[in-house]
């Protein structure tokens, strides 16, 4: 596998996962807004902050109302993390390694791109249309994941796809959880408790996790139970714990994986040690930052090991034939 191609595969799924999770994030926030009681406030700018784009928004002087922020997150071509840009990059990346993917994958990714290009504007404005378009993005993306799993050999190329997907997914899960730490609830406890419950229910819904949470944790939606579930449950496929397991699985198949594996295990140990009971929102936010930094360390180790040759001229060195 060429270093350049491995890197493109990795980024292709990261971009697609980012697009899907941004769609999930927006959908859930829109739901949250509808359910908030009087006296609670929710600033759309929190979305910008959790995805780590607040600098960019400030620099470009983008307004913080719903329409501007939606435009920024969905269709802004100057925002490299917008849904449209992410899918565009994924498509352009796919072009460079079409020969390693089943033909249908390219057709689906191209189809997804054509769809979002045509519908991004629609999704930015009306809330109901937004829900429909973003849901369709999620569905189309899911069909690509399914097609990959079912029609591509689980070879080295596949491991890089899976690696990128799980790293991005774990990262986005922490960000989606982080949204709630920014919601200010009414002081009246009689209003705050059910509001809190609805908030976390939306978070679970955003990650398609509500049903599994109910089955495996319980019917009551409590903040620390949800956080515990989304970070540490080993079985639900969007939890940080599960993603880290998947990452280790991918790495174990790749050659010369020691450094990256070390980073993955470090992330896992730290996650394992986190005590999440009765956490203040601010502390939770810091914990989540820590998880994001650990994920980023895995990314660094992977880049260094597998993508390095692509970025640097090669002198005489070890050869394998």
């Amino acid at each position: 596998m060429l270093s350049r191609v491995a890197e493109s595969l990795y980024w292709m799924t990261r971009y697609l996962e980012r697009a899907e999770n941004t769609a999930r994030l927006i959908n859930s926030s829109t739901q949250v807004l509808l359910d908030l009681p009087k006296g609670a406030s929710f600033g759309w700018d929190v979305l910008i902050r959790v995805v780590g784009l607040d600098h960019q928004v400030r620099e470009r002087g983008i307004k913080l109302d719903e329409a501007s922020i939606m435009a920024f997150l969905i269709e802004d071509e100057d925002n490299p993390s917008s849904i449209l840009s992410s899918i565009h990059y994924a498509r352009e990346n796919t072009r460079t390694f079409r020969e390693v993917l089943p033909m249908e994958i390219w057709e689906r990714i191209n189809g997804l791109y054509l769809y979002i290009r045509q519908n991004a504007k629609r999704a930015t404005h009306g809330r109901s249309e937004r829900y429909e378009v973003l849901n369709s993005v999620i569905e189309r993306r899911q069909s690509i994941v399914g097609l990959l799993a079912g029609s591509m050999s689980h070879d080295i190329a596949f491991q890089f796809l899976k690696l990128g997907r799980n790293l991005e997914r774990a990262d986005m899960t922490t960000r989606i959880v982080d949204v709630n730490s920014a919601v200010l609830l009414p002081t009246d406890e009689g209003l705050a408790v059910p509001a809190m419950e609805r908030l976390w229910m939306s978070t679970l819904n955003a990650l398609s996790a509500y049903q599994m949470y109910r089955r495996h944790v319980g019917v009551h939606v409590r903040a620390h139970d949800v956080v515990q579930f989304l970070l540490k449950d080993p079985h639900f496929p969007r939890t940080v714990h599960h993603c880290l397991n998947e990452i280790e699985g991918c790495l174990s198949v790749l050659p010369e994986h020691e450094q990256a594996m070390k980073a993955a295990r470090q992330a896992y140990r730290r996650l394992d040690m986190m005590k999440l009971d009765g956490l203040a929102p601010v502390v939770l936010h810091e914990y989540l930052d820590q998880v994001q930094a650990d994920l980023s360390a895995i990314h660094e180790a992977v880049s260094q090991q597998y993508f390095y040759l692509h970025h640097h001229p090669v002198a005489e060195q070890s050869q394998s034939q």
Partner: protein
Amino acid sequence: MDILAKNYRLNEAYDELIGPDRQPRPAAKPLFDYLASIDAGTLDARRKAVEAAIMTMGITFTVYSDAGNIDRAWPFDIIPRIIARSEWEHIEAGLKQRLQALNLFISDLYNAQRIVKDGVFPIEVLEGSRNFREQCKGITPRFGVWAHICGTDLVRDKDGTVYVLEDNLRVPSGVSYMLENRQLMKRMFPEIFQAATILPVDDYPTRLHDTLAALSPREGERPVIVVLTPGIYNSAYFEHSYLAQQMGAFLVEGSDLVVNGDDCVYMKTISGLRRVDVIYRRIDDDFLDPEAFRPDSALGVPGLMRAWRAGKVGIANAPGAGVADDKVVYAFVPRMIKYYLGEEPILANVPSYLCMYEDQRDYVLANLDKLVVKPANESGGYGMLIGPRSSKEERAQFAELIKENPRNYMAQPTLDISTAPTLFNDQLSPRHLDLRPFVLQSDRMYVTTGGLTRVAMKEGSLVVNSSQGGGSKDTWIVDMEGV
């Protein structure tokens, strides 16, 4: 739907599907029987389905002038171009004969230059050749073959004669569109493929793979084959990626390869360097190796020529093969065939006037309004003068160009190239077209079944190049026996 009743206007040119009696030619009869059996709505629905499929399949072609948009959909006409098998076999034999002679010629030029010494090929032409590579002198690649992949452009004149218009020996493109066009047609019109014996085209990637594999310097191992592309901004990137995929080869860019002190070529993989045996390069000589050719090239691989000369890697087409891809050299191909093979040419050349010879130049200058003037080394239809459609100023400008650099120009009579019915809305109109078959040569030879038919989508236009807005059609070689 009686599609011919809708005023199909035959003009002066030969029509590939419709005879002068306004009836379908025999090979086209099954197609018109089918068209008669469906209504206009069905045909239009199929055409739209094809356009949608082209979009989702992402069959694209880059046009440089479309700023911001790196690719656009491949314009495709659903009415195929049809040739009877018996005629095709004749053309096929002619194509093989031609490429054999061309390869003998290239080898000769880089070695003993017998053809020059024997006075059959003038030394002046060689001296003026932009694509002759000093670096290739004294080399004889495996099987003596330099041009492993050749795209030969054919046209048919008014009287039905098929002429060779040019031999593309550098990095000819278009074969992926030939393959995709057939896929589209089979998806959309499965009924016709049942009714008629249309010869398949899809073995090309396998044959290309075998042609390349035969060049591997390492015996007995499964060779590592790569397709070397300039990258996604190249107009033919789609094809590079398509062929790599179809052959199970690696698609690489120059930066993925490195030549080490052992003169072997390696590619940079996730587990270190891996040796490469054969390179199907889709970048021009100039950019291939900054050590040997243009030092400013960022597309190539430093040391590649060294590796090739040392016999450590196969390169197709071989560096230097482009010397025979020259419109002046073209004029000598019939003589090469007689000289090297002792045979009469099976396919005719278009009569050509070489401006390097005074008498022929005088004729060209006096008849610019009747001739097509071509520069020796351009491709893609650039830099041509089409006399009958040119302005006085353009002719004056070309007269100057010719006088300044006579070696670089040749002229041919304007051919009335053939047409075929092409669908616009629900009406057929004639459009001019050519045909580019692909010929392979290494240890054996192979010719595609048909080739890529390119069609000028604009009424009356003779320019079929995809870089200038041409489209394409599926090409059917139809077996008439037992019909």
